[in-house]
């Protein structure tokens, strides 16, 4: 896949584009010219607009009864019906509507805002071709039978799949801890997993403390229907965005003063969007913290198998195994969308040590069950532990290579990334390219990257990052050819320092 640079358009003020070099070079050229350009900003018109609230809806806010307008939505529904102006979603939508394609849509948007891993699907596909020849409908006697697939099955997943998933997670964590199928509730994706868990742990008006920057999807997945508040607890670039217990303590007390009950701390490990790992020491501190406050700890470990670099991933489960912490307050979110690259199949996991949570969650799973034929297919794939071991190993190598290339490419443009060891993205500091050092400045840059350079990245403000200028850039939907090899031109440009 080659990448287009709107270089000529920017220089000549036209809408045309030329074939140029590759992504970070694209970024670089664009950023140079963006900073030097002194034309009046035309960004106002291209910033995402709030959809106008339909009249019938606004009328309902004034007079809730008896109008001749069409049937209204609930306030919950209405707030969702309004267009989302969060850049995270705007960018995704724009890219989805007009995606780049080398031959058929070379002028389309390049998606660096979606954390999907395309690097290793070929391995799964190849395995399927060679191994799943017969239909999955043969019963124990080898007779063709649809019974097991078609009929109602436990809403929280087939036991065989729970067993296979437990095994898989164990492999992902490299055997450091074993997971029990009986402590698993399966759901149609990690989104319902985290929502169902949230419904179990907190009431409307309660809150979770969430070290930030954090994954923008949580604002939708957790806050939306549960009525739970997410309180961002800022982490700082000065210590590579590591979790600070002191900051958690402060946030907890502030919430208390406001009369808000905090029910849990929610972390992602590996972190999304930063990509760093939580070290063992911090895990102990977190467990001490939640024990002291008598609250829960939710650890979202969906990227546990997608690590690279020198640090070893340590799951909170591993720490629990070795110490005497109260397990009933610890819950892990997992899924197959990231590590197995199959987001379309919808497989999420709630792993809990709390039997009451498991009891409630397994009932709630009825609203988000995984399709049985998909479960059967996955049992097939996951049960082949030899293949899975090989797959996890190769996938990690590919991630490692892409990560290194991408970070290096950005480095050559003077863009530094936070140190990261996991995930599909890097957390890049582009603050030197924004005109005003605030959220507005950051969004202006985001907007130009999207609408002029046609590159979608996720701005830090969508992730509740308090330091402007940080962007999450995903690299797992690219191929190696997209990462630049320096051309004479770029070398020339590079020799000039960024403003």
């Amino acid at each position, binding site marked *: 896949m080659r990448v287009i640079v709107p270089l000529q358009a920017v220089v000549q003020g036209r809408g045309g584009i030329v074939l140029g070099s590759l992504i970070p070079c694209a970024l670089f050229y664009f950023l140079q010219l963006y900073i030097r350009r002194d034309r009046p900003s035309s960004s106002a018109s291209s910033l995402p607009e709030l959809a106008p609230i339909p009249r019938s809806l606004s009328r309902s806010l004034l007079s809730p009864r008896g109008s001749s307008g069409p049937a209204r939505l609930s306030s919950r529904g209405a707030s969702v019906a309004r267009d989302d102006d969060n850049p995270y979603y705007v960018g995704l939508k724009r890219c989805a509507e007009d995606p780049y394609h080398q031959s058929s849509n070379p002028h389309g948007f390049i998606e660096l805002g979606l954390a999907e891993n395309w690097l290793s699907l070929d391995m799964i596909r190849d395995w399927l071709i060679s191994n799943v020849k017969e239909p999955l409908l043969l019963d124990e006697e080898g007779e063709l039978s649809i019974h097991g697939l078609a009929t109602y099955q436990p809403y929280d997943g087939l036991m065989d799949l729970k067993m296979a998933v437990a095994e898989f997670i164990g492999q992902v964590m490299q055997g450091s801890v074993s997971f029990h199928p009986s402590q698993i509730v399966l759901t149609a994706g990690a*989104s319902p997993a985290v929502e169902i868990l949230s419904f179990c742990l907190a009431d409307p008006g309660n809150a979770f403390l969430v070290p930030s920057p954090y994954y923008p999807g949580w604002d939708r997945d957790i806050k939306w229907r549960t009525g739970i508040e997410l309180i961002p607890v800022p982490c700082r670039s000065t210590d590579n965005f590591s979790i600070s217990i002191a900051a958690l303590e402060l946030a907890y007390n502030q919430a208390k003063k406001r009369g808000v009950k905090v029910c849990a701390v929610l972390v992602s490990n590996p972190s999304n969007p930063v990509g760093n790992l939580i070290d063992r020491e911090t895990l102990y501190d977190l467990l001490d913290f939640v024990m002291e406050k*008598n609250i829960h700890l939710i650890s979202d470990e969906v990227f546990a198998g997608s690590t690279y670099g020198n640090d070893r991933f340590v799951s909170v489960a591993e720490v629990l195994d070795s110490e005497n912490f109260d397990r009933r307050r610890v819950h892990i979110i997992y899924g197959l969308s990231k590590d197995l690259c199959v987001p379309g199949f919808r497989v999420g996991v709630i792993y809990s040590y709390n039997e009451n949570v498991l009891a409630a969650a397994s*009932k709630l799973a009825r609203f988000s069950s995984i399709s049985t034929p998909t479960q059967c297919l996955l049992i097939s794939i996951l049960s082949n532990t030899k293949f899975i071991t090989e797959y996890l190993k190769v996938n990690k190598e590919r991630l490692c290579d892409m990560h290194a290339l991408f970070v290096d490419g950005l480095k050559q443009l003077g863009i530094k990334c936070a140190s990261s060891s996991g995930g599909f993205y890097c957390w890049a500091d582009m603050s030197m390219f924004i005109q005003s050092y605030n959220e507005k400045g950051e969004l202006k840059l985001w907007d130009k990257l999207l609408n002029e350079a046609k590159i979608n990245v996720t701005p830090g403000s969508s992730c509740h990052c308090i330091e402007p200028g940080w962007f999450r850039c995903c690299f797992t939907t690219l191929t190696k050819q997209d990462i630049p090899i320096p051309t004479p031109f770029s070398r020339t440009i590079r020799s000039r320092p960024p403003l």
Partner: protein
Amino acid sequence: MAKKGVPLSEMATSDTHGEDSAYFAGWKAYDEDPYDAASNPSGVIQMGLAENQVSFDLLEDYLEQHPQEFGWGCGTSSFRENALFQDYHGLKSFRRAVALFMEQIRGGRTQFDPEQIVLTAGATAANELLSFILADPGDGLLIPTPYYPGFDRDLRWRTGVNIVPVHCNSSNGFRITLRALEDACAGAETMKVRVKALLLTNPSNPLGTAITRPVLEEILDFVARKDIHLISDEIYSGSVFSSDEFVSMAEVVEARGHEERDRVHIVYSLSKDLGLPGYRAGTIYSYNNEVVTTARRMSSFTLVSSQTQKMLASMLSDKEFTENYLRTNRERLKKRYEFVVEGLSNAGIRCLQGNAGLFCWMNLGELLEEPTVEGELSLWNLILHEAKLNISPGSSCHCLEAGWFRVCFANMSQQTLEVALMRMKDFTEKMKAKQMISSM
């Protein structure tokens, strides 16, 4: 559930999941002691589960001729797209296939636009989604009784919405009347509950009857007058014994030139008509674009596996297969129904005249010791533990008249059904004999 240790939410510890009722208790009894002709002939026969197994062979034949589709559902070239596809709009080919299928069920009398279809992992999720979207916590949903016991859980649990029953009774075959609707509304008003929608199940579960056109018209007028929404749960639409006896709300809306359509939403799924509940393939069809947009976004919590969508898209687009399936399935269900009604009649048991569904609504009023809920539950318990039959008591369905029971007949073989009817006959004879003795 007692709260112990680390605090949990109200939702996790409340009873709103509704699973302590007789409806679910019977299932538990079955799970612990399931009937099997060879290995456990004295086990509990499950007649409390509305599942359709009468036409599996048709599906199996289809599969034999199209093995690719039930394997892993995606050719090698498109595996990647499929594995990555998590767009909440859903696969266009699948939506088109569902729209076509729904049109076929209605004999081509209506048109469904695939763009108005929202996919969910089952009708359970579809109904809950609509509750979230159309009503706020504390608001009310009107539901005619008797109704599917699962609604108490599905519509109320996480949404905080109230169910306002619209009481129907046997004096007119449990038909929904304007009077009953008005009474329910008045009741809600007294309790300061704001009614936001009416939820209809057509054909009805547990009654097994299709709602007639005049009643549907009256209902649409009513919801328009009250300015509320109408959810028409039509998951059994393909299980009406004779296709021209079913009138969809969609037909009524279309006949009116689409007036009032913004308030009408239809729920459908492949769990009943197609006998594929394990696939988790449900849908909301709404004429209201705002509802479609919102439901789509909210469906992120309940997406249908892309593999399943692809698989089913092929199958449902095969018109020859679907026509044959629908016709054959209807015939078989009708035959089963007639067989059951006759068997029960031989045991001296009357049923409501039904024309749809996977169950019949039978009356055991004569066998009750007292015409109360307690009397009914006591009888239900006896049937479960002595006759070893799990059937669903009317009180679980909020029926105000004691003694009615829902009996499912499509989730077992003909042989098992014969055994069940025999047991029922023996049981009623024993009960009647007991009654005669005690009255002497």
